[in-house]
C-alpha cells in the first residue's frame, strides 16, 4: 500500500467503508453506487475521489461513465476490516468468558 495514512484516513468515513464493501462485489458505476446509499451522484463522486487518491480504488473511462473497482490494496484493507470486526466480537466473547466463569453450576454454568 503506497500511502497507508491516506488509506486509513479514507477508511475513517463510514460511507466510504460502505462504498468499498459494495465495490467488493464488483465494478460499479456512480449511479449504481448512489442508489443504495440514498446519496446524490455528486456526493458519491466526492467519496470516490478520496478513495481513488488513497489508492483504494481505480477507475477507468468508459465514455462518460467512469466505473470504479477495488484496487488490490483495498482487498487487504477489507481483510483488515474483517479482522477488526473479529476483534470487536472477541472483546464481547472475552467478557462472556468472565461471566461464564462466575456462573454457579446450578445456574447452568461450569465453574473452572
Amino acid at each position, binding site marked *: 500500500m503506497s500511502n497507508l495514512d491516506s488509506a486509513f484516513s479514507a*477508511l475513517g468515513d463510514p460511507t466510504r467503508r460502505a462504498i468499498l464493501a*459494495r465495490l467488493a462485489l464488483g465494478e460499479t458505476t456512480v449511479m449504481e453506487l448512489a442508489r443504495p446509499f440514498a446519496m446524490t451522484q455528486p456526493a458519491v463522486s466526492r467519496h470516490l475521489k478520496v478513495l481513488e487518491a488513497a489508492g483504494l480504488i481505480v477507475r477507468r473511462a468508459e465514455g462518460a461513465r467512469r466505473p470504479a473497482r477495488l484496487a488490490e490494496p483495498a482487498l487487504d484493507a477489507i481483510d483488515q476490516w*474483517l479482522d477488526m*470486526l473479529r476483534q470487536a466480537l472477541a472483546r464481547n466473547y472475552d467478557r462472556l468468558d468472565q461471566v461464564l466463569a462466575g*456462573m454457579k453450576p446450578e445456574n447452568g454454568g461450569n465453574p473452572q
Partner: protein
Amino acid sequence: MSSTQTPANPRLTLTTEGDTHVVVTRRFNAKPEGVYRAHTDPQIIQKWLLGPEGWTMPVCINDNRPGGKMRYEWANAKGHSFFITGELLELEPGRRIVHVERMHLPDPTPDNLVETTFEPDGDGTLMTMRMTLPNAETRAQMLATGMERGMEASYVRLEGLLPS
C-alpha cells in the same frame, strides 16, 4: 473474502459464506446450558454484549418464547445510542436459538436471520452463529455498518499501528 482466523483470537472465527451468509464460531469453557443461558437471560446479556469500550447496554428485552420480542439498546458517554429489534423464532434450551434482527439507524436495516447453535465440545461448548442476509449487497452493507459500530475502538488502535 477472508476465512482465516485472527492469530490473536484463535478461538474466534468470522467468515463469509456464499453470497449471503456470515458465520461466527467461538469455543467456551462452559457447558452448552450455561452459554445458552448467557445468550438468552437479559441480565446476563447486559454484562457482555457491549461492543467497543465505553458502551453500555441500558435496555435488554429478550422475551424467550417463539414470537417473543427482542430489543437491545446501546449507549455511550457521548450521548450516542442505537438499538436493534427482533423476534425470537425458535428456542431449544441449551442447544439452539433462531431469531431475526434489524438495526435501526434510525431506518430499519433488512432483516438478518440468525441461527445460533451450542454444541458440546469436550468440557466446553462450540458456539456457531450463522447469519443470513437477504442478498449480497445487504451483507456487504451490514459488515460495513457493523464495523462502524463495533470497531471504532479497534480502528483507533489500528491507526496507532496495532500495539495490542
